[in-house]
């Protein structure tokens, strides 16, 4: 399939909206993410005809219906598989995957693992609301221990999975994290994810107002945010706090992070770690930080590109003689071991 790009007049965020009425609950965090995605697409100048949104099933997965690009609302958990097929058939398409914590890490955990490890060139946005929204509020694989839900009336006894830790463990080469309501940050991260070749994994903390309202308040509400959020930036020291008065350093004598005071009366500035997004070990420490002892790390936690899966698939195919032009079928049938019966 050859792709023709039409560069018509510059598109505004609203040009990426479809004519369909959005049907999330009023106040759902999904609205904010939708706006951020539309804004990012506009800023990227993404050609609508070459952009494809693929989703599984869940509230989050309704996403493609609200965009004016190509969209495929598939089945529960399997969007990465279908997106892989799309990229294999036409690597020229710009493919986004939208998934939920249940969709992407429960029923679809296996596909998520493999799409990340293979490094298929996709932007994967996981809306983490720590709950099954669409099926009316059961606990999910990211729900914290003790979560009360219709299926866990006494509280969940399962340990949650951390999406970013899972992604790193799976071998993802781009891992980032954001909060639904922080639009500028979300837009910036989506643009970074888009620029990255290979699988980019973006976890967005998304508030489900109906079934899990406020689960992230302990680090997202205005009064605590600056003391509980660490916005990382490549090459910049890992500091946070209202007055950027605290920082992270390696605890002497062990491989662990500790929060230390910086500035006057604090540790020497040289002790504070500088973010290196190509450092996997550091990323692993950062994704694990949790309040109250630590801030939640947000931003591009890890970015270390390598050849994408489909690029390597086609490199091998071409090495084996794939040209995209029809090859001689007759030659294939006659390859070896034929004999002729004379008339």
């Amino acid at each position: 399939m050859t792709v023709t790009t039409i560069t018509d007049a510059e598109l505004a965020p609203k040009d990426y909206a479809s004519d369909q009425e959005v049907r999330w609950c009023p106040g759902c965090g999904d609205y904010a993410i939708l706006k951020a995605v539309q804004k990012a697409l506009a800023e990227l100048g993404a050609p609508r005809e070459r952009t494809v949104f693929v989703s599984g099933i869940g509230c989050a997965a309704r996403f493609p219906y609200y965009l004016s690009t190509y969209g495929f609302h598939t089945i529960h958990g399997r969007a990465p598989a279908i997106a892989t097929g799309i990229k294999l058939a036409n690597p020229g398409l710009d493919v986004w995957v939208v998934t939920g914590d249940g969709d992407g890490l429960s029923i679809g955990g296996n596909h998520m693992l493999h799409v990340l490890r293979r490094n298929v060139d996709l932007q994967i946005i996981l809306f983490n609301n720590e709950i099954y929204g669409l099926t009316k509020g059961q606990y999910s694989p990211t729900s914290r221990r003790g979560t009360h839900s219709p299926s866990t009336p006494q509280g969940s006894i399962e340990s949650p999975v951390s999406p970013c830790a899972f992604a790193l463990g799976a071998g993802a080469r781009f891992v980032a994290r954001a909060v639904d309501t922080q639009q500028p940050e979300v837009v910036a991260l989506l643009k970074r994810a888009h620029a990255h070749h290979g699988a980019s994994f973006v976890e967005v903390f998304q508030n489900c107002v109906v079934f899990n309202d406020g689960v992230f308040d302990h680090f997202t509400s205005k009064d605590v945010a600056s003391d509980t959020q660490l916005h990382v930036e490549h090459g910049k020291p890992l500091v946070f706090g209202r007055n950027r008065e605290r920082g992270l350093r390696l605890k002497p004598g062990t491989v662990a992070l500790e929060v230390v005071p910086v500035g006057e009366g604090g540790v020497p500035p040289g002790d504070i770690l500088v973010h290196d997004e190509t450092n996997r070990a550091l990323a692993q420490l950062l994704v694990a930080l949790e309040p109250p002892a630590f801030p939640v790390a947000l931003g591009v936690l890890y970015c270390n590109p390598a050849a994408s899966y489909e690029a390597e698939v086609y490199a091998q195919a071409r090495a084996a003689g794939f040209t995209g032009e029809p090859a001689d079928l007759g030659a294939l049938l006659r390859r070896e071991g034929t004999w002729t019966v004379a008339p």
Partner: protein
Amino acid sequence: MDTTSTLRTRQAREAVVIRFAGDSGDGMQVTGSRFTVETALAGNDLTTFPDFPAEIRAPAGTTFGVSAFQIQFGARDVVTPGDAVDVLVAMNPAALKVEVKDLRRGGTILVDTGAFTERNLTKAGFPANPLEDGSLAPYQVLTFDITRLTTEAVKPFGLSSREAHRCRNMWALGLMLWMYGRDRQATIEWLHRKFADRAELAQANVAAVNAGHAFGETAEMSEHLVGYTVPSAPVEPGRYRTVSGTEALAWGLIAGMRAAGLEKMIFAGYPITPASLLLHTLANLKAYGVVTFQAEDEIAAIGAAIGAAYSGALGVTSSSGPGMALKTEMLGLAIATELPIVVINSQRAGPSTGMPTKAEQSDLFQAVHGRNGDAPLAVIAAATAVDCFEVAIEAVRIATTYMTPVIVLSDAYLAHAAEPWRLPDATALPKFPVHFRTDPADFHPFLRDPVTLARAWAVPGTPGLEHRIGGLEKDYDTGHISYDPDNHARMTRTRAAKIAGIASGIPPQRVALGDDHGAVAVVGWGSTYGAIHRAVSEARDEGGDVSHIHLRYLNPFPRNLGELLSRFERILVPEMNDGQLVQLLRAAYLVPAIGLSKVEGKPFKVSEIVQAIESTLKGQP
């Protein structure tokens, strides 16, 4: 052994069934394949069937480690690997133990006495040496110390004793080639190619073939060892090759892709016996426009095929047994989104893991009905290895013409069975170019072709056609999500009508053998073709009023099938399952069809069907 030289003339034979059997490590598959090539080159018609153990490395010398290869070749139309074996080559006691039951009385057994050691006899579970206790009296037993004769023949090449031992199969091959007056040249050339970087191995194997052949030719022979001639079959002139069902499917898919004018095929699979062979075969055909993808499971594999179809490529997936079960939900998605994919099921004995290497036809119900919701799709089946080529092309045609998933039913037998094939003229193959929608005027994704009811194929990358599809029910007129009750009824009936309409584009059902009316119709589908065909032919030779009808199209059935069946008094339906087609026929046409079921993980014997035909002719159930 008698060593006097006698000048023997060769005896003529119409058709012969040989089974090569030995330990998994004895190279029986290679021996069989080489014998096949030389036999084809000699102009015989033939059918082959390998039978290898399920265990990867079963302990040497045990009965469950026996690997066998059967070939029937002859001067007339050979359509099955043969019911009863004429010649059994048994390279060890376990092979003799397992395989002798299929040998016809009076048949010949060739054994390597060198392998009949105390230890091997015990491992095979023989209380006494069968070569000495008279238990083989019904057969003609020819004993040679192939182990010793091979060791002597390859001595000059300085192989390790293990390597020397592994040349035994070539010695046995040489003797069998002599027995049937076959050439050795192609095999010798093949050995030189195969061991190109180990000249001493090539030379040793060639020496073993030659020694086996010379053994037959010269004095060191039993007078009982007779040479045979099997006259070549009257075949149409042309270029031929042997082809297995797997190869024919692979090439047919490529031909189908070309016929549809598609640039590439994305073939996604997850390893499973016996379907993996197709993945392996296509992985080597990238030069022909194939991209293969080994997915993380069967769900992902069909998902990738659907994603590929959505993007305008030919999406194909293939599996077997439990893997087909996993694909169910995705098939529903392909039906709801009306995307063209081809799904190949190499059926094996079930339920669950069942018997992975054994053929069965027990997934017919699953293929036709096995999904949630009213979820119709097209189902077709291949009858022979050669037929796989056309069936694959036809699957691509139906999928792309009607925008539907198509299930192709093959089985573990067809995956491996091979037969000679007169190569088609690649330039004269059918053409059915697809039309991608490009016109944005009045576009919505569920616009339908008025004749085929196929929805428009609009692929990402096309400006102005941006749209959303998915598994939720869609409005007939706009393609938007709709839960409207009348709309759902309309969409359900449209999906059904589209699949039913496929029958308008396929040839009417013909009779494969016999009249189009009469006392008994034997109706089959899939790989039972050969056995049914031969059985009907034999029954007709005896004067039986019986015809053979073989179905390629299982959903929908050909338009005239009901009417055709109504012209027979009785309908006999042999199937390698517990009675599935028989029920579909009864349900569709209210005909008094009776089933003949075989569920032993083995193909029908011709004689079993002949017997059933005889009782049916007599009016017995």
